């Protein structure tokens, strides 16, 4: 009986210890993402790259239509949406 109680207590301690980093990970990830946004916007207020981004977007929009098919585009979009959804879940 005493042995079972010790085992149960030990398991509970292990469970609590293991869950603490997991519980702490999400707020940490959220704080980190806010820090990234603040640091980047301090040097680069326009997340689309200011005048540099405009030049890149102009080249991109000119080359995009003929070079990639609709199916390939949709597949790339789906992949990005899934990656973003996973990132959001991990940083909530």
């Amino acid at each position: 009986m005493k042995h079972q109680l010790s085992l149960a207590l030990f398991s509970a301690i292990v469970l609590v210890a293991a869950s603490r980093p997991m519980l702490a990970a999400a707020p940490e990830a959220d704080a980190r993402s806010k820090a990234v946004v603040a640091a980047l916007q301090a040097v680069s207020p326009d997340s689309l790259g200011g005048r540099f981004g405009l030049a890149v977007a102009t080249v991109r929009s000119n080359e995009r239509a003929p070079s990639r098919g609709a199916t390939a585009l949709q597949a790339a979009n789906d992949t990005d949406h899934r990656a973003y959804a996973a990132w959001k879940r991990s940083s909530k």
Partner: protein
Amino acid sequence: MLSLIVLCLLAPAGRAASFPSSAQIQQAFAAVNLSGSQRITAKEWDQASFALFRAADKNNDDFIDRDELRDSNLAPDTFLRADLNRDDKLSVAEFVDLRRAMFNTADIDRTEYLTPSEFELLILMERVGWQDTNQNGRIELSELTASLIQAFDAIDADHDGFLTAGEAGYMRSEAFQLFDTNRDGKLSRDEFILGYRTEMLSG
């Protein structure tokens, strides 16, 4: 009324591009470069792009719409070009797609990561622009030189043809010292251009 019109016409030309400090640029680099490797990888860049997208997507519907655009610092012209399916809003895929293209263009030496020097140039070119004369989406050395000449003129506040450490406050101090080959404590246009070009060629 006339004076107001004159003021409006003069304001954009007279306004100098403001540059962040070297410390701010290094802090931003470190925030994105989670591994601390002094190299921003494509994956780290994507993670930062997700964070920026979420910050702009106030209603959390996974799109940046016109209202959110108005409340942000995003450039409307770039927004229009990034909106590939012309639905008047940016999906995360469209946003990340443009950000990846920026990463690939800013990766001048084509190593698939951004060095502190490439990141510094990216921040510089966000203010002074870049002309993709051959329309290949990459920064060739001749295009880099053209951008650096523009940048030099924008940074040289007193227009004396030299950059002091104060004027080049956005630059890493070790780079300033390295570029200053004649050790006179200031950078000529040639030193400025040659310094960056040498850094890009040496990776």
